[in-house]
């Protein structure tokens, strides 16, 4: 059994049964950031309080997307075309760039509901690398 490890630490909760994306929130102005940051990014905030870690909504809507038809070269060779890259608008107001998992791109429609899923991006001899994806919520 390969060890499951996040492709980058700190982007999402792990280990977890229902992982969420991890951001930061300013306790003064409420500005939310993803990924985590050490300082507030709101130009109207006086930046006087340390940020707190927060979890982002796991559901949002598809803002836009594209199908990337080319493979990426090493060291990103596990992104093999065609793959879908999308932008997901979360209730927090942020739009997150994410790989999209969908049976095919034809079912994608801007505005449709999307849900976070943490899954294996690629494996090597020892590890399975986990990443965050969004996938369409087809029917409830």
């Amino acid at each position, binding site marked *: 059994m390969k060890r499951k490890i996040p492709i*980058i630490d700190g982007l999402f909760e792990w280990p977890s049964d229902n992982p969420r994306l991890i951001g930061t929130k300013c306790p003064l102005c409420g500005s939310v950031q993803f990924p985590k940051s050490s300082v507030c990014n709101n*130009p109207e905030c006086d930046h006087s309080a340390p940020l707190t870690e927060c979890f982002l909504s796991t559901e949002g809507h598809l803002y836009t997307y*594209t199908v990337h038809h*080319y493979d990426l070269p090493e060291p990103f060779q596990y992104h093999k075309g065609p793959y879908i890259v999308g932008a997901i608008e979360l209730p927090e107001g942020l739009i*997150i760039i994410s*790989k999209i998992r969908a049976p095919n791109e034809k079912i994608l429609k801007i505005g449709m509901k999307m849900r976070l899923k943490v899954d294996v991006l690629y494996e090597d001899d020892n590890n399975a690398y986990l990443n965050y994806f969004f996938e369409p919520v087809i029917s409830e």
Partner: protein
Amino acid sequence: MKNSAIVSVAITEWTAAGSPTPLLIDRLAEVAVKALREAKMKPGQLDAIIANTTAIPFDNKSYITTSAQHFAHRLAERIGIKDAQCINVCAACASASIAFALADSLIKTGSIKSALVAGIDNSPSGFYLAGQSVLDPDPYAAVIKVTGATNPSYWAMWARRRAYEMGEPIEKIKELMAFVKEMHSVYGARNPYARYKRIFSTKDVLSSPVVCDPLHLYMICGTSTGGGAAVLMDGEIAKKITEKPVNIAASTVGGPIYGEPMPRLRVFSTVGGKSAEKPFKEWRIPIERAYKLAGINADDIDIIECHDTSCFHTINWIDQIMGWEREETDKLIEKKQIGHDGILPVNLSGGTASFGEAVMSQAFIMIHELFRQLRNEAQERQAKKNLNIGLCTAYGAYGAYGCIILEKGW
């Protein structure tokens, strides 16, 4: 405040990138001397040399920056200076535009009387990826690692969103982008400095492989090497040097604003939620500021040179520069009104579509073209209409923007 003007501009031929070329500093010195000679100036008379830095990849962890980050100083050594400030400017693809704006500002404040703005670049080839520095991890390397999003992915997502917001099928903007490429290639073929001379039909473009849907290969610029130089002077002195000075009505610089609703290049996420009403606010800000400084509005613009890393950029720039409803932009392009005989000529240089991108030095193509067009020296590419005011816009990663408004100074 003083006036400032351009008295000369020279550019190199744009050539293939991704492999070593003749020594860049030699090519830069050559084009700088060409611009100085056209301005009838000796280097000893310069008050400043302001250069763009480059996108040349670093290739060994123990090498301290590359000397290409210091072209202002190295050029000064090559051509000789007596008492000039040397400044290097880094702002991704908007670098040369911002170097130009800095020179303009220094002249307008009276701090200097003359400046040589110069730069050259040899781009990385293919998708612009990012490596992890051993000392400071590059956040964009993490973005590619996680999302697989390359630069064309973002451009394609912008194009799809525009189509959606207009309520149009994706095929419509695809055809429009292909037609933009056709128009740009017609003028690239007429430009001796452009790298690509082939004229593409809309059909050729739509038959090329899809890179990031809706962007096909020929809708995305190639990567090139090239550079240029411009001599800027105090407006009063410029009039004594040339009969046809081109005045700098305004030059502005933008940045990545909080609340921009459209995900900008190379990010994981937007910042600050969607506080702007319309996307691409940060593209508009430097343009609106330039209009204010120049005391003009969009209707006064006779000709545009815009940074078209993809054909979507041309369309989006027209939207943002003219402040129209998007349907107006589409109509203008569909009716072939962006050519030399059109209502609003756009990229008669052939654009980045015909030059390929020498990343940090792109603005020289645009400044050179507007300079020649306003002086009626663009030969086969010359706009038919009477030109008084031209505008160019630069766009770079990380939210780097520049806008320059030039006008006839005679």
